[in-house]
């Protein structure tokens, strides 16, 4: 029942895309719209492997925002997420030779970032106890306050999920990856991804049930 044909990222990602077109000389018009297609990926990565800084810049401009966002979803800490993103792009620069064109560049980068995040989460767990607190929403919060509180509640609920469920939800819901692409990033089967997503969504629905009533109130609009 799953989509076994990996679609171009542009077709599976409905959310706003990144692509500031800094290296306009290198990228085609399609790339500037945010569609770094497969051939372009391969060509640019060959150049990065040969030490071409402009090709590197084109790719880092294209992928930076997505890698930062993904790391934020996993770590829940913007500063740490930025460290992970920087390390991810350092590896892109230094290890471009080890990228195999069979894999999408985006999934390769997500996998690097994912592994770096997991290392940090595990180190964190070793040094500090899990101190998740239940979220609560005030009686009559302003619209802005409510929005912030809902976001905090979502962040907290996601951080309470097991690592792989959190990663699967982040890659599917926020990054718009298809299930086969998520399987590639997490290095598991597509069936395992479906199971992770299913368990993750059920747990989130349960954890966030209290928010539904608040979201129905007109106060949170605008």
């Amino acid at each position: 029942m799953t989509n076994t044909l990996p679609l171009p990222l542009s077709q599976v990602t409905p959310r706003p895309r990144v692509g500031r077109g800094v290296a306009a000389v290198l990228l085609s018009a399609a790339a500037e719209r945010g569609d770094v297609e497969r051939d372009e990926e391969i060509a640019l990565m060959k150049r990065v492997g040969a030490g071409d800084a402009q090709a590197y810049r084109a790719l880092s401009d294209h992928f930076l925002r997505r890698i930062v966002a993904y790391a934020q979803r996993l770590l829940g800490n913007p500063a740490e997420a930025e460290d992970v993103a920087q390390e991810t792009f350092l590896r892109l620069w230094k290890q471009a030779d080890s990228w195999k064109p069979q894999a999408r560049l985006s999934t390769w980068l997500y996998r690097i970032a994912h592994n770096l995040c997991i290392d940090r989460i595990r180190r964190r767990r070793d040094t500090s106890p899990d101190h998740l607190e239940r979220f609560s929403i005030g009686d009559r919060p302003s619209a802005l306050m409510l929005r912030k509180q809902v976001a905090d509640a979502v962040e907290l609920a996601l951080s309470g999920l097991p690592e792989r469920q959190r990663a699967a939800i982040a890659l599917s819901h926020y990054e718009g990856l298809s299930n086969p692409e998520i399987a590639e990033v997490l290095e598991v089967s597509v069936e395992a991804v479906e199971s992770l997503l299913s368990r993750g969504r059920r747990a989130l629905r349960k954890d966030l049930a209290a928010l539904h009533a608040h979201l129905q109130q007109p106060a949170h609009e605008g």
Partner: protein
Amino acid sequence: MTEEDLTLTRFTELLDVHGADLQRWPEPVRDAARALAASDAQAAELLQQARQLDDVLDSWESLPPSTELQRAVAEIPLRHPREAGAKLPWFLGAFWRTALSAATVVALGCAAGSLGNDAPQAPAAPDQLAALDPPELEATEEETDELDELMELAFLAEASEEEWP
């Protein structure tokens, strides 16, 4: 797949896996899912709940990369310079290293074998010694020089190997 084939249980499973955006569902079940949600109140309610979850998740917006991060990422090639084309592909490097080493060993072996063959195999009779040809002795010296050159080449190869990553 028709609406009849898509049970409510399967519809719920698919909602959990793919979320409320039916466009992200497998193409063969999309129409059946839409039809079921339109005709079955329970399916419609489940879809609505899934949409609420998606909406709630969307409320957590990620922060864009800071200016400092953008600068640091852009400066990576400057901070970690690599000379274009300076590095041989690993297979080429390994191939030439192996080939050069093998050639050196073979050449040394041949040279040593050649020198060894010139040594008398058994004590020669005095008349046989007298018959030895002087040019043959000169040829042995040339081969000794050749051996020296090969040794030098081997050391050079070893030295340049260290320069390879």
